[in-house]
């Protein structure tokens, strides 16, 4: 497949076929990642800037590893170590990065729309690694790979519950779009104070009772509860939240057989999910991390070689 997109801003840009292609490519890289020597020369000579203007360890490491396994040169630029803290605007930072001629920039930023802001101004590929509350397409794609492996690629008739702080979650927004695109049904559950407005315009079913929300679901995706939500007056106390919206073993009994559990991490054990449940057989949390590297390898490959005629000769499935 000739890749036509310059940037990955959100999964809403992608067709079903494109998503399937990304997942197939990621499955191939997953296999490479299980070899003793995990490095391939696919992106040799290409450079990727990891521009993380918001603290992140796992996503940044995942992208860094993905780039290095493809032999790309990765350069990390963190907000604390960059001129951003000295009052430089995002535009100037972007233009400065552009002048260094990278092939791609992976951006994580606390403002919704920051990835698009870069994409509109720069020639190189922009991969959104999370912008504010807006989108986290690489997370949604790695979740889709995780589901796809579990369900043999068949999303039809499956129901996924996304649980927790939906309002502030880019993971939820991207997953709602992608799961619907792939044919799954999506439920949301959480306290009303952590729900976005106008959910009537979202393709989801909304529950305020976790017990009912879990009935017959094929997967539960727990979201991280940022502890500052309590201080912001959105929750009375964490103990009450855990009791009302924390996922426990009892909820799993009403779920469909083989129901799996996902979490984008990092986990607050005992808050959004019972600690033992996070370590149970149904938990795919660590597989998500593994799939994250493979998906990001696939994305870097597709976006950075989209203009190369020889991309098809690299042994990667068409």
């Amino acid at each position, binding site marked *: 497949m000739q890749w036509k997109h310059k940037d990955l801003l959100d999964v809403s840009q992608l067709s079903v076929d494109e998503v399937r292609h990304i997942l197939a490519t990621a499955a191939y890289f997953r296999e490479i990642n299980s070899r003793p020597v995990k490095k391939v020369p696919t992106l040799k000579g290409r450079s990727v800037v990891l521009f993380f203007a918001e603290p992140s360890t796992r996503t940044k490491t995942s992208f860094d590893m993905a780039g290095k396994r493809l032999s790309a040169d990765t350069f990390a630029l963190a907000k604390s170590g960059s001129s951003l803290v000295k009052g430089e*605007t*995002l*535009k100037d930072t972007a233009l400065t990065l552009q002048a260094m001629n990278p092939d791609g920039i992976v951006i994580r*930023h606390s*403002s*919704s*729309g*920051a990835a*698009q*802001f870069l994409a509109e101004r720069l020639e190189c590929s922009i991969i959104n690694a999370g912008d*504010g*509350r*807006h*989108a986290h397409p690489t997370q949604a794609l790695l979740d889709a790979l995780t589901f796809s492996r579990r369900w043999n690629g068949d999303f039809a008739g499956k129901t996924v519950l996304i649980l927790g702080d939906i309002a*502030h979650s*880019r993971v939820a*927004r991207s997953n709602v779009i992608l799961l619907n695109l792939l044919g799954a049904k999506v439920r949301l559950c959480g306290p009303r104070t952590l729900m*976005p*407005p*106008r*959910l009537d*315009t*979202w393709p989801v079913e909304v529950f305020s009772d976790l017990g009912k929300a879990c009935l017959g679901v094929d997967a539960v995706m727990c979201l991280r509860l940022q502890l500052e939500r309590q201080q912001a007056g959105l929750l009375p106390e964490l103990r009450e939240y855990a009791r009302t919206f924390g996922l426990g073993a009892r909820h799993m009994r009403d779920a469909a057989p083989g129901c799996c559990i996902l979490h984008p991490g990092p986990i607050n054990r005992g808050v959004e999910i019972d600690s033992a449940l996070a370590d149970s057989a149904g938990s795919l949390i660590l597989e998500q991390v593994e799939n994250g590297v493979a998906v990001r390898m696939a994305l870097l490959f597709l976006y950075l070689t989209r203009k190369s005629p020889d991309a098809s000769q690299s042994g990667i499935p068409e």
Partner: protein
Amino acid sequence: MPEKQKKLDLAVRGALWFGPLKADSKGGKAKKGGQPPKGQLVDVLVARGKIVALTPAGSLDLRATHEVEAHGLVLLPSLTDVHVHFREPGQEYKEDIASGLSAAAHGGFANLMCMANTKPVNDNASVTEFMLEQARKSWPQGPRLFPIGALTKGLKGEELAPMAELKAAGCQAFSNDGRPVANTELFRRAVEYAQDLSRIVIDHCEDPFLAPAAGMNEGVVSSRLGLPAQPDVAEAIQVARDVLLAEYLHAPMHLAHISCEKSVALIRFAKARGVDVTAETCPHYLTLTEDEAGGFSALAKVSPPLRAREDVEALLAALADGTIDMLATDHAPHAAHEKEVEFDEAPCGISGLDTALATTWELVRSGRLPFGAFLRAWTTAPCKRFGLPVNAFNPGDSADFVLFDQDESWTVDAETMHSKSKNTPLLGRTLRGRVAAHFLAGKSVLGTAPAGA
């Protein structure tokens, strides 16, 4: 009648007029919404800066010192804008009084009331006097500047500003615009104090606790984009507070930039109870929706935010039936580099003086806004409310009028805009209708006046 003996200084011949004529009031009556108005050709006669007559074209055979052929350009009285931000003193890189008045002159405005959120704040006589002096120096023939004094010192919402001193220096009204007074007790005292001075308080209605994020409407678009937003009830709740307070105190109140249906309903309710409340809305709330922010464009970030389609319809109906009395631009210039940032980092505001007439005329042309309401909202209503000079084309009115080329298409860009700041979501779009000539007290204020004079 001394008319015939009077020496005419200016005669504008053959302009297209959509309003009623005193001599022939059935001729150009404003049509109800749904149909574009029909016009007739008229002559305007001016002596010593005042209107002498507005008559059917060719009906009076009097020659003037300056004769102008309008060739069917639309005749409009100059507009009044009770809500602009001219940024001087303190932020002259965004706008100064000279450039703001230039945008006003080219946009068709005669009277401008400018808000107090300058640096320093207009909360003492020296700032007011400085503003007036800058206006006199830059545009001696007008457009005229009428400063609005701060309601509280430094707009901090803590202590009353010296309103008597500000009135004496020339402040036409008082407002805490941009920094709504959360403390209702303090706000009450401010309204009462202004009452003694016969000055109206203008309130920017926004519950600051319910509206932690400015510039984006809480709704379908904010939900999809994950943008921090504020609900329309943050405005409406404050409207409710204000009209109840105005009724209780028997005080006049003016509500700035009303943006949503809920506020309209409350204003309608208050007026039915006889409360002395007036309200303005802005061209952008009548023509644009929250969808403008769909691509994270900070040019569409404005406070209060652009709302939903239903709000636009409610505001148009309210303006037509008089529930909303007047239009104002809330002209809020910001430099390009301030707007070209992440959406949540950008300041709120739209630069409006250059585009207001064209965008609102489009509503008249398409029949969505009756001509009578358009005229009232831009001229008589604001002038009457705030005691500003008005031209209703009655003999003796100040000869402030515009010849408007309703067919000229122009693209909104850095070249065509006269404001220093080009921050409008209309940037790059084509509008129809432009000011061809502008006369204030019978004198052309634009270099581009027709050469017939």
